[in-house]
């Protein structure tokens, strides 16, 4: 009896164990087989964290390595409205730090959403003040913000990037593919407290930052150009102004200034009209500065020589039933004097002697009517019509800079080609592309486009242009101790209401190079709609002189008339 009871109890126990094991087994099957995928994913979510990181946008520096644009990680603030206990109090606390109105913040915090941006990309100082607060339902994420530490300096060339870090204008846009960093998604392991752990075998590689750019621009020259241009535009009460400084030997742009300026750190309130780079987008009728190219073509084609005598018609000449005027009643003058005195009649006569086809060929050779291919976006082509569309007066008009549209960049490139012995260079603003460690990935070399005129012709034209400064219309472009070659231009603008040339609206310009015998700088100054004395020689030439003198001194260029210390003391 006892034996059968014991056996019975053993069976019961065995049964209970079996049931227990059966339950455990069935649970295991449920967890490990039937719900394996869901539970595995749930576990991953709990101990793994997926973060999306974006590599910092590349920096932009000038030719001496001075910082012009850089990304800095700053704080962006978001709210989780459901988790905010007191939206009114929270809004009042955040308002003075975020510089956003309290009622606006409160409205956002009352929205029925799980996430709202309250303010993005705060200044570092704002971020530090925010760190002192700890409010439930308010969070902070780090985002890259583009800083332009020099403010408005070079803004039209640099452009700017948008809120999400993409380049929208200027170099930022043109070199977007190099500048932007690569996004990378990383899976991090974390413990029960949410701390990140890197288990064995997991390699951590951060996102790849964008490449850096080194510009040909010199911050000091750019600053001088912008300051003098702003002063000139202000003094003349002009609509706008443009100045470009080129190295004629290489085509490297040393400065490109546009007035009025804007601050790329705060572009939201401005429109495209303000940030457009007029130096390469806007075409204008160049007026007398075009006589430089006409003279080069005529001398190259042996139509004239500098000492060829031209009759000035005493200031009036009829061409195709229209009268061409000169501001001086000239009689017989040499061709050199035609350019120095800026005679429209002399230029028209020479142009007509050159002929349509040859004039058109040289306009194209100097780069008019086509892009210079500078590495900046939005470049215009200007306006050069085909000779078959020219009227009876067109040759005369184009020879004195009418019926043709050029950009300031085209004009200074063409003049720089004369300074460079007749060889046209491609202008450029980026000289090097570097990786994040500073290693050079690509070096951009000066690029020859073509030879336009012979060195002999270039020398002849230079001599004529020197006369413009010493005896002609450009005396105010003179630089003490240096030989300057250049040409003034004063062009009437078309009145949009009447379709004829306006008597009150002008474009005043001056373009040239210095030192004339060994050019280091080719420059153009264009002032749009100056008031009062609107002549290029009066408004634009002084800017050329002031910038030229300071830049030559800054670059340490020896003067053409070296003086000893004793002479300098005597002079003083």
């Amino acid at each position: 009896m006892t034996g059968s009871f014991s056996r019975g109890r053993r069976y019961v126990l065995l049964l209970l164990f079996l049931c227990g094991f059966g339950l455990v087994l069935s649970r295991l099957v449920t967890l490990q087989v039937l719900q394996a995928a869901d539970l595995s994913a749930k576990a991953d979510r709990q101990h793994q964290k997926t973060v999306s990181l974006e590599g910092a946008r590349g920096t932009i520096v000038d030719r001496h390595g001075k910082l012009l644009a850089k990304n800095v990680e700053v704080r962006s603030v978001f709210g989780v409205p459901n988790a905010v206990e007191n939206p009114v109090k929270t809004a009042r606390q955040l308002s003075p730090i975020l510089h956003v109105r309290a009622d606006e913040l409160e409205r956002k915090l009352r929205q029925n959403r799980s996430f709202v941006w309250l303010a993005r990309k705060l200044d570092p100082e704002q971020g530090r003040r925010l760190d002192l607060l700890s409010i439930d339902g308010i969070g902070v994420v780090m985002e890259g913000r583009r800083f332009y530490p020099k403010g408005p300096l070079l803004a039209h060339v640099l452009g700017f990037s948008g809120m999400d870090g993409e380049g929208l204008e200027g170099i930022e846009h043109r070199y977007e593919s190099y500048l932007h960093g690569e996004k990378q998604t990383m899976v991090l392991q974390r413990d029960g407290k949410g701390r990140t752990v890197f288990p064995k075998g997991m390699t951590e590689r951060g996102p790849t930052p964008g490449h850096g750019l080194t510009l040909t621009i010199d911050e000091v020259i750019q600053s001088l150009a912008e300051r003098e241009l702003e002063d000139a535009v202000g003094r003349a009460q002009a609509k706008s102004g443009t100045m470009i400084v080129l190295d004629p030997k290489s085509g490297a742009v040393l400065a490109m200034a546009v007035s009025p300026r804007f601050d790329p750190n705060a572009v939201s309130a401005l429109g495209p009209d303000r940030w457009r780079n007029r130096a390469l987008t806007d075409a204008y009728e160049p007026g007398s500065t075009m006589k430089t190219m006409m003279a080069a073509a005529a001398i190259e084609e042996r139509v004239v020589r500098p000492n060829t005598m031209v009759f000035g018609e005493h200031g009036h000449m009829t061409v195709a039933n229209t009268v061409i005027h000169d501001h001086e009643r000239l009689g017989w003058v040499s061709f050199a004097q035609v350019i120095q005195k800026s005679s429209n009649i002399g230029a028209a006569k020479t142009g007509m002697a050159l002929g349509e086809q040859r004039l058109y060929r040289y306009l194209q050779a100097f780069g008019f009517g086509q892009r210079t291919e500078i590495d900046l976006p939005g470049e215009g082509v200007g306006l050069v019509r085909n000779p078959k569309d020219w009227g009876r007066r067109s040759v005369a008009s184009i020879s004195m800079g009418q019926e043709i549209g050029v950009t300031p960049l085209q004009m200074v490139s063409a003049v720089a080609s004369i300074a460079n012995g007749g060889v046209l260079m491609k202008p450029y603003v980026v000289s090097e592309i570097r990786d994040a460690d500073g290693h050079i990935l690509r070096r951009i070399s000066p690029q020859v486009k073509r030879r336009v005129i012979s060195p002999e012709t270039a020398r002849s034209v230079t001599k004529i242009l020197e006369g413009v400064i010493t005896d002609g219309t450009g005396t105010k472009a003179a630089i003490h101790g240096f030989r300057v070659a250049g040409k003034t231009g004063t062009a009437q603008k078309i009145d949009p209401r009447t379709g004829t040339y306006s008597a009150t609206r002008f474009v005043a310009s001056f373009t040239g190079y210095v030192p004339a015998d060994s050019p280091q700088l080719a420059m153009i100054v264009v002032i749009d709609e100056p008031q009062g004395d609107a002549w290029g020689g009066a408004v634009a030439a002084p800017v050329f002189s002031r910038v030229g003198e300071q830049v030559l001194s800054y670059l340490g260029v020896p003067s053409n008339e070296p003086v000893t210390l004793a002479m300098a003391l005597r002079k003083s």
Partner: protein
Amino acid sequence: MKTFTVFVGLCLVFVFVWERVDMVRVGYQIERLKRDKTMLERQRDELRVKFSTLSASDRIAKLATEKLGMSPPQQGQIIVVQSRPRNVRPSSDVVPVELKVARNYLPTGRL
């Protein structure tokens, strides 16, 4: 022999566990250092931008003119002079030493 085998086995288990624990500890350490590095890099970037802002030519020129009463040299005030030792004759081989002197500030007496 049996005791020795058990001892070795326990040692191996201990080493394995110690390695795992130490790896996690080092992982935390790396993470903390990474955060420090990020903070320092952020500070460095902010300082670079600040330095660049403060050293801008525009700003320095403005301070010089408005606070220090300086003015840019006017036309003809910058004279580039050649300095040549007295006992050396002018020659194309001699490299001139360039000095920039603003005329207003040339001393009246001996240099």
